[in-house]
């Protein structure tokens, strides 16, 4: 591995499938030790990007450096430093978990002794040790997915690419995988993560990129995105008895009111002072408040703003010029 600050660098990365531009001139830099989230709606070009970054398919245009190695010129060296969990990947179902892990070790040139110790460790970590000699076709979906991740870790890679690693898994399996990613990151590994779970990205990632129609709409730390693009904060109130929303609109600081179920949402620029006005208003009218929460914009709000209803692209221009 070369001594570089950016473990993943992509410049002008483009992939055309005939007429379709699946990925359109994207630039990315992922620093060493970073967990980088890659978000986007279905068909946005996430998998295509990951496949190009991992050397599975060749870009139509653009350059890629992995840990300082030019992926297109020196694919073997570049691939040796990364572990990959493809979107729809599989272990060999006719082989046992153990044999699958050993095959990975051999393909990545890991010495046999190291490979044995590491396989034992990973099987225990992923809760598969008691099934290690069973053919993987007998495994459940979650077990298979854990095995595929274990396989990607057999070479103790510096960079790990995961394309939707937790999709379709139960809470426990998903949490186990998230914990492993966090541990790896604490040990200094760089992680490139594609996911549809906003909360997962929000918790794990140092920075996220949102891709839409093959173009990057924003790259920032999640909190910055929420502050800049997420829009207004809101108060979530539940009243004991029904309150007319037109009255609430007149409260100072409230810009919009929406009702949903037993909850009323008050949109505001300054949640703090609005709460005070709301409380005053209720006291004056003897209205009982059951619950009151302050909601800040979530990553999901940001995501929907940037990718929803084809409105994304105008805002993109704005975000990009805002400097990301």
């Amino acid at each position, binding site marked *: 591995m070369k001594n570089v600050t950016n473990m993943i660098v992509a410049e002008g990365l483009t992939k055309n499938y005939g007429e379709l531009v699946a990925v359109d001139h994207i630039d990315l830099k992922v620093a060493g030790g970073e967990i980088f989230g890659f978000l986007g709606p279905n068909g946005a070009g996430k998998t295509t990007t990951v496949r190009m970054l991992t050397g*599975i398919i060749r870009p139509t245009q653009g350059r890629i450096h992995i840990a300082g190695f030019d992926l297109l010129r020196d694919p073997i060296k570049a691939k040796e430093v990364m572990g990959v969990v493809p979107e729809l*990947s*599989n272990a060999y179902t*006719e082989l046992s978990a153990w044999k699958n892990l050993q095959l990975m070790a051999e393909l990545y*040139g890991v010495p046999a002794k190291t490979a044995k110790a590491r396989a034992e460790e990973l099987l225990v970590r992923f809760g598969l040790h008691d099934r290690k000699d069973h053919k993987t076709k007998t495994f459940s979906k979650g077990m298979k997915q854990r095995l595929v991740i274990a396989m990607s870790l057999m070479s103790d890679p510096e960079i790990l690419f995961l394309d939707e690693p937790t999709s379709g898994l139960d809470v426990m399996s998903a949490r186990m995988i998230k914990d492993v990613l966090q541990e790896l990151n604490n040990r200094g590994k760089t992680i490139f993560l594609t996911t549809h779970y906003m909360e997962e990205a929000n918790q794990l990632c140092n920075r996220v990129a949102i891709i839409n129609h093959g173009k990057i709409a924003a790259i920032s730390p999640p909190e910055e995105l929420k502050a800049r693009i997420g829009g207004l904060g809101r108060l979530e109130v539940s009243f004991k008895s029904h309150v007319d929303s037109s009255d609430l609109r007149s409260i100072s600081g409230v810009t919009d009111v929406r009702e949903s179920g037993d909850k009323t949402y008050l949109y505001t620029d300054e949640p703090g002072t609005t709460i005070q006005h709301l409380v005053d208003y209720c006291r004056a009218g003897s209205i009982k408040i059951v619950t009151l929460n302050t909601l800040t914009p979530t990553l999901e709000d940001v995501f929907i703003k940037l990718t929803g209803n084809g409105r994304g692209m105008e805002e993109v221009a704005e975000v990009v010029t805002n400097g990301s």
Partner: protein
Amino acid sequence: MVPEIQGQMRRAFAIARKDIRIYYLKGPVIIFGVLSPSFLFLAFMIGRNLPVDFLIAGLLGMTIFFTSTSVTPVIAPTETQTRNLERLAAAPVSITTILIGDMLASVLFGMLISLVPILLGVMFGVGVAHPLVLAVAIVLAAFCFSAMGLVFSSTPTSMTSTVMMMSTMIKFPLVFLSGVFIPIHDLPAWGQALASISPLTYITDLCRYCFQGAGANYYSVPMNIFALVVFLVIFMVAAVKLHERSLPMRL
């Protein structure tokens, strides 16, 4: 450069071991490997008054041909469908390494199954006049036909049946061109010309030499070996080029 090539070779062996475990160590594959050439052979030979050593030589040539081309064509389409190919494509191995791995497994299989006709010959009292040449011939032919199988598998499909049909359509006519059933000496001039474009001709001719002794062969031994090497190189280069094109289309 040298350690890198060594590394890739070791990885090719890892792929070969995987292939053997998954695709070759299966009852039906092994039984089919032994039976199909035997049946085809019997079908054409029964009732014709031919010497046993002639029969065994032809059977051996066909056995290597059928076993070595039996599994290599289906590995790529199968792994396309099972989605293992993407894992392999992400690993630090070149396409050549993957193909060499597939070829090595097939060579081993072809060599092992080719012992069956040899032992059959021994049972019928057919001795091997030139064991060393025979060993070289078997190894070389197994490589050559395994590479041929890889050319078949380069169609970017996940349907094994498509590949099997295509390869069968090419394999069977080749058998009839190749002097297996009729000695090349006895073929008309156009038949001899056609036989010369089939790699199976050369291995069968070598087997004739090894079992029936000098004079039974039509081409000289060096000529036969040279021809097999040329076919091997052509098939291997074609397989690598074609798979480089088709791999991205499979994903």
